[in-house]
């Protein structure tokens, strides 16, 4: 079976301090999406899979509807787009105090203290996000949503 992730990611993960695994409990991957954004729609299946695979590590994937629709509309759109990860409420988004995205989609990795650790603009794949997590010292080496 091929390794699930590139060697660079595995090495980076191996070098990270074990103690950081505790902090991983509250790291968040915040994905700004919009219904009209084709690249946003394209990365949803990847984010769904990533959400499932990272959940055991306590890293959560959450979504933000960039269009700021009412909550009921947002949930309706999320369901229609097949978004399986939680979508933040307007108040939750406001509490994060994040800079509005300059382009859609934008994915932000937040530390447990809600500091922006990484900001990924445009369509991402799993490898790009996992690489960022590894660079941040999160123990993701054994985790991948990819099937062998």
């Amino acid at each position, binding site marked *: 079976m091929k390794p699930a992730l590139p060697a660079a990611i595995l090495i980076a993960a191996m070098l990270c301090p074990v103690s950081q695994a505790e902090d991983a409990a509250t790291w968040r991957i915040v994905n700004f999406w*919009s*219904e*009209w*954004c*084709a*690249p*946003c729609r394209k990365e949803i299946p990847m984010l769904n899979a990533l959400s499932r695979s990272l959940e055991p590590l306590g890293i959560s994937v959450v979504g933000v509807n*960039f*269009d*700021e629709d009412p909550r009921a509309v947002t949930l309706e759109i999320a369901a229609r787009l097949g978004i399986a990860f939680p979508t933040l409420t307007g108040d939750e988004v406001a509490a994060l*105090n994040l*800079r*509005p995205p*300059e*382009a*859609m*989609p*934008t994915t932000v990795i937040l530390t447990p203290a809600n500091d922006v650790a990484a*900001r990924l*603009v*445009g*369509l991402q794949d799993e490898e790009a996000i996992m690489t960022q997590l590894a660079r941040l010292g999160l123990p993701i080496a054994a985790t991948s949503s990819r099937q062998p």
Partner: protein
Amino acid sequence: MKAKKILVPRMAGVMLGVFGLICPVAAGESGRDAVTPELLASPAPAHSHLSRVTSDDTGTVYLSWVTERDGLAEFAFASWDGSDWSDAAIISEGRDWFVNWADFPRLSVHGDGKLAHWLRRSGSSSYDYDVVASFYDPSRQRWRDGTLINTDGIQAEHGFVAMVPTGPYRTLITWLDGRRTKSEPEPGPMTLRGAEYASTGERLDEWELDSRVCDCCQTAAAMTSRGPIVVYRDRSPHDIRDIAIVRQIEGQWTEPQTVHDDGWQVAGCPVNGPAVAARENTVVVVWFTLRDDLPAVQLAVSRDDGEHFTAPTLIAGADTLGRVDATLLDNGEIIASWLDLRGTDAHVMLSRYSADAEFIDTVAVSPILASRRSGFPRIHSVGNTVYVTWTQVGDANRVKVARVRYDGF
């Protein structure tokens, strides 16, 4: 409704002081007296947004906006004679409109002719919509029935319209046309199209101006001494999304060329189109870019009708959200509008440059919500006065309008 002074100048002073310390735009360093934004009483009612400002040949200013209530969208305008607004006049209304914060109706006024467009849903998908335009009939003093501008008959996205009069009774309309995005088995790219219309609504000609452009950014058009130009965000096969220009010279459209090779590569939707202003052979383009995740609003000038441009001048750096507009004063100076963002505080900014793109000053016009709900502030100049409009977000959104007089400065 009379003009009244507002408290913005005090805020502008604070902003200018802050900028003097940390902003790449050296506001307030010109040695001239500070210009003062003046808030005008808005003719737009509660629940209004998506405003634009334009003028006719006599200098009369027109403010347009959209209101939404109970599912009914209404497109209206009022004119400003220098001291008062006229009563609001309704252009059109509908329950099947596509109303969007970035892609919204436009009013063009030229001579005794008026032309307005809006967007109408064409299918069940949320983002299938057509461009509809109405031509004003001055002899009957009424708006003609809406005309479908994109005639492809494909349920896809059509919008981000720009308009520019090309003659006494002619107007160029350009738009992003998604007819190829519904291709099978693989969706094709968004295209840029243009068509020239007579003031009666007759279509005179139509062209595909670029076969592959960014899907979600506004387009802009202007008239030069050699003909109309269209400025837009391009999209290369490798997702480089820099600003491009096409020009019509003696009836023929040029191949697209970039205004500057920023090299912003992004597989995403910037929703941050460029602005253009032109007078005779001078063309000014203002745009947002984000190469290497570094936000920048830039300005480039052409002295040959858009064939060649100067190297970009940086207007704003890390703390800008873009959402730009541009206009040229009668004295040749350049005004660029952009959004400044510090923490959660955003402001509508006007930066002034000489005809040679030398910085003169920057003024904060108004605080604004950074959220998409505040839309895209728009500017337009008459003589040496700039009119600015934006949306004040609240329980009931409301269009605001101000002017900044550069006479004597």
